[in-house]
């Protein structure tokens, strides 16, 4: 399958800060790629450049073989994007919102009417079509926002944190529609910072960290290649010194043992522990979080939380500029 999206050596800086540092990424026809990374990793910058909303410093972006950096307008016709922030016209109806963007992406009047009904049905917003968009609930607005990106059946769908703030029902509808579009042959780049969400998608994974794709493949392949089982030991009081067992501290009362053989490792460690000091034992199966830890040496949730704090403190995420 040829790549609908081909990104090579993409660099982008905001003043002195490098947001993208040589990103390479291909998304094939019919493929859903979950672009995974903590806040501030560069996901929004990458999506924005592909969509022609930001200029790259250097590198190559091709959509269906067309140079997207040089012929942005031509390429935009083939792209559907749902940006991170909800973007709808609140003072007109849902139908008028959908119709406007369908028309601006080249659909004829008859096609607009048909697609409005199809997309609305898929996202369960048919009953809302004649309602003023500003009067909908947050989840309903999110569905309308996402529906706009599907209107013209884009060859490449870019969803930037599509389910942020969405309720369970909305998330379900969005993920189903993503799957259906991919089955119809479109390529989907789905950026998210929720690790858990990736398992709900029929997706391969690209992990973006500090402006670089550090891992790419199917979840199971990445886990097998980069992560092993871990054992978390929680103590009542101070953590005894278990460094000679290869344990690393997770907190003041917790250590983690990375091991392919938890049973043997546990037997060794338990023999060294004072009786009654252990509070609990958790076997941690290898997952994407473990992959991230193995590749970066940093815990995903801490990096992500720091990204959120930075974004809140600065008033703007670097990647969202």
């Amino acid at each position, binding site marked *: 399958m040829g790549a609908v999206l081909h990104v090579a050596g993409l660099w982008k800086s905001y003043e002195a800060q490098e947001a993208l540092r040589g990103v390479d990424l291909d998304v094939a026809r019919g493929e859903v790629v979950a672009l995974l990374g903590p806040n501030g990793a560069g996901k929004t910058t990458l999506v924005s450049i592909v969509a022609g*909303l930001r200029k790259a410093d250097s590198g190559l972006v091709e959509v269906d073989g067309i140079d997207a950096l040089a012929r942005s*307008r031509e390429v935009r016709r083939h*792209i559907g994007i749902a940006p991170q922030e909800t973007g709808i016209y609140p*003072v*007109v109806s849902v139908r008028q919102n959908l119709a*406007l*963007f369908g*028309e*601006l992406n080249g659909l004829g009047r008859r096609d607009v009417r048909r697609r409005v009904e199809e997309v609305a049905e898929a996202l369960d917003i048919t009953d809302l079509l004649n309602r003023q968009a500003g009067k909908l609930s947050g989840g309903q607005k999110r569905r309308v926002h996402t529906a*706009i990106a599907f209107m013209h059946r884009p060859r490449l769908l870019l969803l930037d944190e599509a389910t942020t703030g969405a309720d369970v029902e909305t998330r379900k509808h969005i993920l189903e529609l993503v799957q259906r579009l991919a089955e119809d042959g479109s390529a989907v780049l789905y950026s998210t910072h929720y690790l858990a969400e990736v398992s709900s998608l029929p997706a391969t994974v690209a992990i973006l960290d500090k402006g670089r794709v550090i891992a790419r493949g199917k979840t199971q392949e990445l886990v097998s290649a980069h992560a092993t089982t871990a054992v978390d030991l929680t103590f009542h009081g101070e953590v005894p010194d278990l460094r000679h067992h290869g344990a690393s501290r997770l907190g003041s009362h917790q250590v983690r043992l990375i091991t392919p053989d938890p049973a043997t490792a546990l037997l060794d460690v338990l023999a060294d522990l004072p009786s009654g000091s252990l509070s609990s034992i958790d076997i941690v199966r290898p997952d994407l979080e473990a992959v991230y830890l193995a590749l970066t040496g940093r815990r995903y949730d801490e990096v992500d939380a720091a990204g959120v704090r930075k974004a809140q403190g600065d008033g703007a995420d670097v990647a969202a500029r």
Partner: protein
Amino acid sequence: MSPRASWAIMRHEFRVLLSDPSTVIFVVLMPLLMVAIMKELFATALRDQGYASANGSEFAVPAMAVAFSAFSVGYAGFTFFRDHGWGTWDRLRATSASSVDIMLGKVVPNVAVTVLQLVLLFALGGPLFGLEVTGSWFAIVLLIVVLALALSAFGMLVTSVTSTMNQLNAVGSVGGMALALLGGAWVPVETMPGWAQAIAPGIPTYWAMEGFSDIILEGGGMASILTPVAVLVGFGVLFTGLAAWRFRFEDTKVYFG
């Protein structure tokens, strides 16, 4: 450029505008109220200038038309800031509509509302205030159109150099007031201080007032407003050129604050 995309955005802008018609009604009604209040004041000034039968509407109607159309400077920019606030600006840019399509789609409705506002004011000037146009009505409409175009172009220039809604409000309202005042729409230019009279010809509204006065009081036609029309077109081209040079589609504009 795609006329279809421009037309789609224009229709959409009208829909947005008509979702809250109070603004349009307000900008049409307020000048009428101001004419009613100021007519007598201007009657005295006109009689002193030798127009013995003047009732004041001959100055008040064009003056209020020009003064209120100057506020369209802010309205032109508002549609852009509003899209940033609603998160729809990047969505528009991500469609296959070109930059020109988006600009036309947003500016033309603003020009149309300004034209409608001014045409209504002149049309109601007769029945409500006894305005008698001694010259050509076609010339009045032409002047209205070029004035609306020049002011909207100025609005685009202001939009291109402002980054927050507060800045736009300040420049749009105070700037609009200054444009009207220095152009002679609040008081006749002849009554202003010497320095203000000297700079008045550098203001687009001055030429609009010159043209309207010529048509209404002197019986002027198309030929007599060639200079005001040419100057206003020149201003429009200048402002459009500067706005096009300075406007950055990727710039972030802050809707509130």
